[in-house]
């Protein structure tokens, strides 16, 4: 060994953007885009709660939201977030399949993080993608009615929403999709904190508890609103 200190120092990748070429770096991106999507969900739920205030409040909110050109920027950013999350998750999943070409004849699972939520992540993720596409066609690109609120002509999204949820099968489909979303979030949210290195012995249980409350609370909020709409 050389007498000069540090001669044998390992040389890692030197540029910070190379982080995305590593498995750990890609997991960061999946976690960050997942958490950002959760932020969107929270905002979406807050907006939807205006349904309870009646058609004028909800329609005015929807009109304000869509009449600014910033909505296109926001939609583009959201699109990129979803695509990065989906694309990287699929890539990681494919790499995971490749990492064990020969399967076990007998394999049992008993990890504390192993449950129906964690083992179905790819499937619930794909289901959410299908839901997202249908959701956009059913509401954003769904039937258009017009109304006037305080003399301003605007889309009557309230009517579109109520009409949709009046159909029992639409309601059932929506509740199933929200349950799948809850399953995805039940593992995804707390897993994000682990991937980003935020989890530690001190706050681990708090993070898990908070993540579960969010994971079940937000979809429950959406389900509550859909049932409320059905009963109108």
């Amino acid at each position, binding site marked *: 060994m050389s007498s000069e*200190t540090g001669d*044998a120092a*390992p040389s890692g990748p030197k540029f910070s953007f190379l982080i995305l070429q590593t498995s750990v770096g890609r997991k960061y991106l999946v976690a960050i885009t997942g958490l950002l999507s959760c932020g969107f969900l929270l905002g979406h739920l807050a907006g939807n709660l205006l349904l309870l205030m009646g058609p004028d409040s909800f329609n005015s909110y929807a009109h304000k939201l869509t009449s600014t050109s910033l909505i296109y920027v926001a939609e583009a950013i959201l699109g990129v977030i979803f695509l990065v999350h989906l694309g990287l998750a699929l890539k990681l999943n494919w790499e995971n399949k490749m*990492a064990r070409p020969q*399967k076990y*004849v007998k394999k049992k699972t*008993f990890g504390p993080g*192993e449950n129906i939520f964690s083992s179905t992540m790819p499937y619930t993720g794909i289901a959410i993608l299908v839901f997202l596409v249908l959701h956009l066609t059913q509401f954003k690109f769904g039937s258009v009615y017009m109304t006037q609120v305080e003399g301003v002509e605007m889309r009557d999204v309230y009517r579109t929403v109520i009409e949709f949820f009046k159909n029992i099968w639409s309601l059932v489909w929506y509740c199933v999709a929200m349950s799948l979303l809850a399953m995805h979030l039940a593992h995804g949210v*707390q897993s994000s904190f682990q991937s*980003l290195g935020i989890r530690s012995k001190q706050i681990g249980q708090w993070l898990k508890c908070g993540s579960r409350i969010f994971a079940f609370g937000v979809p429950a909020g959406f389900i509550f609103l859909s049932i409320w709409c059905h009963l109108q």
Partner: protein
Amino acid sequence: MNNSNKNNMTIHLKVWRQASNKEKGKMESYTLSDVSPDMSFLEMLDQLNLKLMKEKIEPVSFDHDCREGICGMCSLMINGHAHGPQLLTTTCQLHMREYKDGDEIVIEPWRSRAFPVVKDLVVDRSAFDKIMAAGGFVSVNTGSAPDANGTAIAKVVADEAMDAAQCIGCGACVAACENGSAMLFVAAKVSQLSLLPQGQPEAASRVKSMVAKMDEMGFGNCTNHSECMAACPKGISVEHIARMNRDFLKSSLLQ
């Protein structure tokens, strides 16, 4: 080995047989009688091999060394559990008293693209050595030994580093992980050094180099199911994975 008594059992084994990495393998069934409950699992395999040799059948190859649970050489996926059903136990410390007369035991090698089968139940775990060579060390000048208490280290930090340092590199984490990920192994090796002052000078380059080598070796990605922690015979916590993720982010963004 003539220790026949009324407690001895008959065990039905299904063992993975593969002549070499180039050839295809398959499960073979063997029935072994007169298995003492006091035998270790590896002694049971020794008895199987004696029987096979008497029958002019090639004995089953399996890895073992210290047989004291500290060297990390033994492996084996036993009835779907890495190192068998007993928690915090290596295969060599598993005893046949865990089983009862007439039980069927399925024995397979670790399955991972990064751990190719050498023969039967023996796999090549040198991918771990390559990860260690990429950064799992501290560079120190040779010379006289420093004073033992010259560098003060808090007890909690020393304990945490010791927890990580318990890793014997057996590969159960990879074998148990549904993705064949080596994150727990690498995280333990990174943590044991990064927690201590001696590991600080190379902390940033170490974590980057070891993660890069881990990826290169073809291990899968962590999906936070904690199968590795449950299978680890030393009970190493996935909190070390969170620490490595933190260290990797810090080193990649700041240095």
